[in-house]
């Protein structure tokens, strides 16, 4: 018996009830052309008897995708513009992996996973599933869910698209100030040319 496959089978109807669509080990929530994605990843350390797995999740913006950032019709979690692993929203931010033994009751594990999806993953995705939500997250929250330059690039594209030029100018000024003399400064300048930014 493949424990991981069985687990995914057990989780599928429960996640579908929550509005997710399934493709492989990925589950999708859709809002317009944006995706919230939950992915279950089996560890390479798993054996036939013991499976370790974790949950990665993220938000993919089609505006950013069409601009050329990880463009895909049905993206995978690694292509999300905002990404996280489930442990990042647990106390102490552990690298959290579920451990399942072949003798374990899968429905018990599945309900624990669903509880985590409901209490952590879905609220965090919903906060950011719209482009407005992503802008708010990147402007006001510490958890960027990407690199420093990633946040800058994505935020500036969304602000320009929205037409919020005041905030765009503030973001650009602050970023150029803090990245002076660092490799990100030249990356930012290159990006500003690409989006045809001018004050």
């Amino acid at each position, binding site marked *: 018996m493949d424990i991981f496959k069985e687990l995914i089978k057990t989780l599928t109807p429960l996640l579908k009830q929550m509005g997710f669509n399934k493709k492989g080990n990925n589950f999708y929530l859709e809002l317009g052309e944006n995706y919230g994605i939950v992915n279950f*990843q089996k*560890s*390479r*350390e798993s054996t036939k008897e013991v499976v370790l797995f*974790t949950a990665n999740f993220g938000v993919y913006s089609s505006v950013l995708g069409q601009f050329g950032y*990880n463009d895909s019709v049905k993206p*995978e979690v*690694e*292509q999300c513009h905002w*990404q996280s*692993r489930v*442990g*990042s929203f647990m106390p102490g*931010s552990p*690298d959290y992996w579920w451990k399942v033994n072949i003798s374990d009751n899968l429905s018990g594990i599945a309900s624990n996973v669903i509880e985590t999806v409901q209490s952590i993953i879905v609220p965090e995705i919903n906060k950011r599933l719209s482009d407005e939500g992503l802008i708010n997250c990147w402007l006001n*929250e*510490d*958890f*960027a*869910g*990407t*690199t*420093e*330059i*990633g*946040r800058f690039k994505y935020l500036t594209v969304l602000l320009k698209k929205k037409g919020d030029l005041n905030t765009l100018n503030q973001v650009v000024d602050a970023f150029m100030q803090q990245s002076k003399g660092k*490799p*990100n400064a030249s*990356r930012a300048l290159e990006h500003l040319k690409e989006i045809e930014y001018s004050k």
Partner: protein
Amino acid sequence: MKDVLKLIKKSIEVVFVIILILTCMVLTVIPASAKSISYDQLHHSCTVFHNNYTAQEGIPTITTSSYIVRRNVTVPSGNMYLGVASSTAATEGTQSLIQANRTAGNLFRDELATALRAEGRTVNTEVYKWTPFGKRYMDLDVWHNGVNLGGIETKVGGSRYLPLQRLKDAWLDANGYPVQLVRKPANW
């Protein structure tokens, strides 16, 4: 008429003998040539790899185990059937070596993760990063204050840093995600 039949019979015999000789030649010659080609190519590629590796990363010697893995896989011995048996045994040995290397690699990765967490970083293991050249598997993905700082590839012994990995890492680096290669020192 009798002569004609005799001639046909004789011809059939001759053709049969020729086919038999050719079959024997094929069974004898092909394994021998396969052995010499695969071994030479293998030996050559190991040497080239060893030299490149030493030059690029300052590794003085390649580990015995990783060399044995490569050598065992493709050195057949004896006839074709013995060759198969030998490579089966080698595969089993290879698998256990790979497993041992993987365990050692995981231990080193976990040690490094613990050290980084002690410095206040959030560290995730076994993370896939997207690149246009395919996904890149990172041993460690390091975060600080909610910002993704970069990835770490941990290496034990003489395990290789492959060209495709380098290509993906270069792309990630150009996009603000630096990848560091950390090799476990021999006397760790």
